[in-house]
């Protein structure tokens, strides 16, 4: 079900859409609890939980102490024993404090116990740069978690997907990690009312084209669409794929596009090396789509450095629209 299918929709911001999903879940399912730092009366650092504590009470919208490792572990234990916790990290950077519980416990418990339990926990991570918050509050760590079997890792890019993927994550019996780019929270869009789910393992073509395939993730989808719009003015039609899921990656949607365009550009905000782009490039190189390539694959990712504070440096550290434009144009026109 989606906005196109004639369902009633309402304009909402990305943050409101997430809140709407949590509100529905809290209302429909007694097992759902929200946990996190300052998600109660403060409403969350990015005002995502907002007034949910007033509607559902502090026993279900639980402010934790500043204890990321403990908080994650409590969520894992609760998920193993009947609750459906949604844990908000104040910034995705603080996942680093909770890696033990995320990587060693949440991701592996089911496997280690031979399938005897499931860990239906959802974790939400406000991520990315662009706010001037510098090196410890601006990282994009989705590929870190994407490296761990047992986790599902998604990056919704629209209000509609943010809601549908959160509800899908709650339905999922296994741990789902949701990376939300901070600069998207205020983005508005039409969102279907009521309950619906959006698949956690499907990429989506946001703009069709035949000249070059641009696979983008997170906020880079919006930058890639901007660039594609400008390219179209020059008669170059780029196909923009919103990756949506980092683990698993929707191989077929990407290969199909590459077979059509013969050119591939991967764009993501996280540090370029050993990341999403390397994985997608390898997927293509290992497949029949490789034979369709008319040019070497190009990756655009974050610079090999922490995110700096100075605004000009901060912009220099992650791909910008102009970078995407240049790279896509060069690929499409064969000038490299």
């Amino acid at each position, binding site marked *: 079900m989606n906005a196109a299918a004639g369902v009633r929709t309402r304009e909402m911001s990305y943050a409101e859409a997430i809140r709407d999903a949590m509100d529905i879940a809290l209302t429909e399912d007694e097992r759902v609890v929200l946990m996190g730092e300052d998600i109660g009366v403060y409403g969350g650092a990015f005002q995502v939980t907002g007034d949910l504590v007033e509607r559902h009470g502090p026993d279900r919208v639980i402010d934790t102490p500043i204890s990321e490792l403990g908080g994650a572990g409590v969520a894992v234990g609760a998920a193993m024993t009947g609750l459906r916790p949604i844990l908000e990290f104040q910034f995705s*950077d603080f996942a680093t404090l909770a890696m033990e519980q995320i990587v060693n416990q949440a991701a592996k418990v089911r496997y280690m116990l031979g399938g005897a339990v499931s860990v239906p926990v959802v974790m939400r991570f406000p991520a990315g740069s662009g706010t001037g918050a510098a090196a410890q*509050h601006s990282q994009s760590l989705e590929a870190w978690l994407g490296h761990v079997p047992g986790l599902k890792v998604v990056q919704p890019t629209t209000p509609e997907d943010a809601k549908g993927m959160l509800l899908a994550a709650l339905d999922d019996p296994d741990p789902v990690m949701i990376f939300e780019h901070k600069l998207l929270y205020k983005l508005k869009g039409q969102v279907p009312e009521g309950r619906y789910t959006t698949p956690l393992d499907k990429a989506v073509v946001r703009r069709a084209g035949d000249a070059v395939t641009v696979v983008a993730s997170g906020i880079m989808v919006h930058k890639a669409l901007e660039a594609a719009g400008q390219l179209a003015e020059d008669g170059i039609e780029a196909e923009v794929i919103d990756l949506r899921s980092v683990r698993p990656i929707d191989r077929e949607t990407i290969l199909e596009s590459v077979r059509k365009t013969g050119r591939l550009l991967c764009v993501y905000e996280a540090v370029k090396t050993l990341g999403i782009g390397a994985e997608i490039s390898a997927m293509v190189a290992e497949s029949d789509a490789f034979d369709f390539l008319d040019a070497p694959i190009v990756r655009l990712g974050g610079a*090999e*450095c922490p995110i*700096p504070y100075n605004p000009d440096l901060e912009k220099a550290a992650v791909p910008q629209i102009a970078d995407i434009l240049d790279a896509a144009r060069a690929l499409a026109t064969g000038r490299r």
Partner: protein
Amino acid sequence: MPDTAQANVPFAIATYDPDRLRAALRKMYLIRKFEEGAEDSYTRGLIHGTMHLSIGQEASAVASCMALTDDDKITSTHRGHGHCVAKGADVARMFAEFFGKEEGYCRGRGGSMHIADVEKGNLGANGIVGGGLPIAVGAALSAKRLGTGAVTVCFFGDGANNEGAFHEALNMAAIWKLPVVFVCENNKYGMSTSTERSTAVANIADRAAAYAMPGVTVDGNDFSEVAEAVETAVARARRGEGPSLIENVTYRWRGHSKSDRNRYRTKDEIAGWVKKDPIARMGAMLVTHGIMAEEDIAAMETDVDDEIAEAIEFARSGTDPDPAEVTRDVHTDRAA
């Protein structure tokens, strides 16, 4: 140290010569006016990012550094401007950091949350709550192994006392009898979460018992009380007797950061604490004991105003970093 109880003279008056006391008051003004200047620059859109102001907590920062020399170290927090000034930093270079300039303490790479002044022994503010605690223990281990005689004062907030890093750090400092003084600035809240809601013990100093070290709770807005507690703990550390935990009870007048709506506390509570202004109390103490006259204090304020205005000018006319140097200093340049 002199026996102050009998003479009914505050510890600080009996211990420090008038020049040092005047310099301490001046630093307290410098902190406040630095932060007011930063806030104003932010409101006028001259600087970006976020900032955490310590207005109302100046006695804790300055008094806690009275026992230290430039060879001693501190570790600081996200709310670290006061610690930085107290340890001897130049506000012009601090402003330059805020403005993202090469002249800043971090060459514009760190911003408010990462200001450090390594030459003066300030190992840095920290974007991670609790991040500085084990680092302080490491600095103390260095001092002990290398026989430098240096002591480390570790600043942290009440919220940080619920991170695992706090407990691990205090334990290691105690088992190895390291020269470190843990100074908790208990301003009643970690963001929106009160200590009553976040912390199992009534006083954070009570946690010292679990790590077999002395723990005291003092009025953090009373310069003399804080100075006495820290002098005692630093002397103990220098004698090789190990760490101490001091809890300075204080209050932040401003919101947690720029985006705080203060929904978790009342106007009355804030107003009550504004009446306990640590700077006014320090000034009154110096007047009462004949160290300064009211006019001297007024002149000092004007002098500090001038220094702040000049510092902002210096910062605004600083050098912008070259975006081509965004990956500089990720690693040490071994050729240099």
